[in-house]
């Protein structure tokens, strides 16, 4: 007994010490490796004790029980897959831009709040959610979240959850596209390299379709060479007096380019553009994450951001609102991400070879994503806070030249000289880094810092910066393309409940209409974000966070219902605790976003401020005309309506969940709807 637990006790001591260093340092800079050490210790202990407790005692996993892959094995959709291979599959599917962006934005409160939330959130909520949904789907033939909700909570709850999921998808696509716009605006080098991926992907598509079908490794290597060439060549393009301006786009131009691109990409055959770019972005993502981990360990940089800033009380320039509840929705992916419920009930449960593999894949892969989030937070925190705030504050706060930006950031309490900002922009080969909001450029500067420390020194900084931008833009664009397709099918399914002919996924007209509706929906929010006075991320990211966490709450409520139905009531706290926390955070954040009297936080207060000014005939900045005033008011009301919709969805599901739990309690036997094997008792 002692021998079994002694190494873990030692690990706990190391982790506790590292956390103490992280949490108690005041005044002097600490090394990033303390955070990394604390995170790894917490994750390992969380896995060894909590995940295995859930597996053995709460779920009662049974390694002998055949999984869908074994029972229904067809060599195609249902394939018993090696554990490590499936781990890679699952991790590649869950890790996207979210865990990289949220923590960067959260760094405005200092590195400590974000770190603690990621560590506690993933162990107690995020990984539990992924694991539970994988478990539930695995015992139900690998069905999807919507179907699972329908099975365990009824038809109405399932439909409501589907509508919620579609709206969340729309917001995710809009906010992801907005990040690309923010990263590429006025950056010919970045725009060229990202544009170059389109012909590159087309060539790769033709290659894998006809020349050497299925040779993914080969074609990805060619693609990688092409990407690197595009980055190197991009510098000359940016400097050219002809091509430089041709690839310099305003945010609004990029917005329309992306909307057009999204619509076209989503109706092209998948092998031509989506699949090859998926290969590139997946391998690049895994490679970049691994390189970032190695880079942080080799460089062992000190954290220059203070542990806490004055913005924990609210009033921060990056996003509005105080630590509670807004920190907990700003970092969604990495701590707890509702979207993972869709992945955990997607392909993974159909591929799992044994129930004994579920903890590593369900819980473990999410810990890995949390580690990615920790690295992103470290990246933001190793930058000079002056640079961080100059990059992430809206132009309305900073003005547009280095002198005004440096003065504004210095006034916030983070002294910085104008020429430091100019030099930082020059180092990464950009005209300016001021108000490059959205998180991606900040992370790219941090990655350039880390990578150039390991390879190439200062001379390579500009290359690494654009490499990082390309890596982020590439997988965001892949997500936009794939998400538009997924949204299209969701929409066809939803409309199909009213107009049955819409369901036919092969039909041309319904497909085009659903695609146009889907692109139009995220395009609306993207356009709103691009024209937003506060830079868009400020407005849209919280809405995204709220919606994503609400989906997580829905998934955890489903898990709670299943535990009640399994007659495992006494362990239902495992899912009820995180559900309660998410409901508290999302409903209070949603409520504040709608009704807060502070126009910076509340949509309605903001709309009122503008409409009162409009009645007096005034035009408030940044609007330049009465028409723009009207648009801002309209957008505010749409956003408020959207938050209301999310609140209604989550509260409705909560009612269904309570009803289902009570009904399950009244029975004296389990009432789960498992497929295959006896219902676990």
């Amino acid at each position: 007994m002692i021998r079994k637990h002694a190494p873990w006790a030692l690990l706990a001591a190391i982790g506790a010490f590292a956390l103490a260093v992280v949490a108690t340092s005041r005044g002097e800079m600490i090394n990033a490796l303390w955070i990394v050490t604390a995170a790894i210790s917490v994750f390992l202990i969380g896995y060894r004790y909590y995940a295995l407790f859930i597996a053995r005692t709460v779920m009662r996993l049974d390694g002998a029980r055949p999984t869908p892959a074994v029972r229904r094995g067809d060599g195609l959709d249902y394939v018993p897959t090696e554990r490590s291979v499936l781990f890679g599959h699952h991790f590649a599917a869950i890790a996207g831009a979210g865990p990289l962006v949220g923590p960067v934005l959260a760094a405005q409160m200092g590195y400590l709040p974000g770190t603690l939330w990621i560590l506690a959130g993933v162990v107690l909520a995020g990984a539990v959610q992924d694991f539970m949904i994988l478990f539930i789907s695995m015992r139900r033939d690998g069905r999807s979240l919507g179907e699972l909700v329908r099975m365990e909570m009824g038809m109405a709850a399932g439909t409501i959850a589907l509508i919620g999921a579609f709206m969340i998808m729309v917001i995710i696509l809009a906010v992801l596209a907005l990040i690309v716009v923010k990263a590429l605006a006025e950056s010919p080098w970045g725009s060229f390299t990202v544009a170059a991926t389109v012909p590159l992907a087309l060539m790769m598509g033709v290659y894998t379709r006809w020349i050497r079908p299925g040779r993914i490794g080969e074609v990805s290597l060619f693609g990688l060479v092409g990407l690197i060439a595009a980055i190197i060549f991009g510098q000359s393009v940016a400097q050219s007096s002809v091509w430089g301006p041709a690839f310099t786009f305003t945010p609004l131009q990029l917005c329309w380019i992306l909307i057009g691109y999204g619509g076209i990409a989503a109706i092209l055959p998948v092998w031509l553009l989506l699949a090859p770019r998926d290969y590139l972005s997946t391998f690049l993502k895994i490679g970049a994450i691994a390189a970032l981990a190695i880079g942080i360990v080799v460089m062992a940089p000190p954290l220059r951001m203070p542990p806490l800033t004055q913005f924990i009380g609210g009033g921060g320039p990056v996003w509005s609102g105080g630590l509670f509840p807004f920190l907990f929705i700003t970092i969604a992916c990495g701590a707890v991400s509702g979207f993972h419920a869709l992945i955990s009930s997607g392909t993974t449960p159909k591929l799992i070879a044994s129930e004994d593999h579920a903890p590593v894949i369900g819980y473990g892969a999410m810990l890995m994503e949390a580690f990615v989030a920790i690295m992103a937070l470290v990246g933001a925190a190793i930058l000079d806070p002056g640079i961080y705030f100059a990059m992430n504050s809206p132009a309305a706060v900073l003005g547009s030249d280095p002198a005004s930006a440096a003065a504004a950031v210095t006034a916030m309490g983070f002294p910085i000289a104008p020429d430091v900002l100019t030099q930082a922009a020059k180092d990464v080969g950009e005209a300016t880094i001021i108000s490059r909001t959205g998180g991606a450029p900040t992370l790219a500067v941090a990655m350039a810092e880390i990578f150039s420390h390991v390879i190439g020194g200062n001379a390579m900084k500009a290359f690494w910066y654009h490499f990082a931008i390309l890596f982020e833009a590439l997988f965001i664009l892949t997500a936009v393309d794939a998400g538009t397709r997924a949204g299209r099918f969701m929409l066809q399914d939803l409309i199909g409940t009213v107009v049955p002919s819409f369901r036919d996924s092969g039909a041309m007209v319904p497909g085009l209409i659903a695609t146009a509706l889907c692109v139009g929906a995220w395009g609306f929010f993207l356009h709103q974000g691009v024209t937003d006075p506060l830079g868009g991320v400020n407005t849209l990211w919280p809405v995204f966070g709220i919606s994503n966490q609400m989906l997580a709450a829905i998934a955890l409520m489903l898990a709670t219902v299943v535990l009640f139905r399994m007659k495992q009531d006494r362990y239902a706290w495992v899912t009820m605790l995180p559900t309660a926390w998410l409901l508290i955070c999302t409903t209070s954040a949603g409520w504040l976003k709608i009704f807060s009297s502070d126009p910076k936080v509340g949509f309605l207060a903001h709309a009122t401020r503008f409409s009162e000014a409009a009645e007096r005939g005034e035009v408030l900045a940044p609007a330049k005309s009465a028409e723009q005033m009207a648009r801002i008011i309209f957008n505010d009301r749409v956003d408020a309506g959207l938050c209301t919709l999310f609140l209604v969805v989550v509260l409705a599901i909560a009612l269904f969940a309570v009803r289902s739990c009570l009904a399950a309690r009244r029975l004296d036997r389990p009432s789960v709807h498992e497929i295959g094997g006896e219902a676990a008792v």
Partner: protein
Amino acid sequence: MGELFGLIARTARMMVGLPDYGAYLRHMAEHHPDQAPMDRTAFFRNRQDARYRGGGGRCC
């Protein structure tokens, strides 16, 4: 060494949604010896279409 490379290759392919062709052949030989299995190209195209049918499962 060859085994490790095989594992990495299978993981990389599965990351982009392409299951093992060998496993498919074994399944067909074992359970459907009467049917001709798809060749490698047809298998690849079949899996590619399947991956993106619902959007291609990917997170934010």
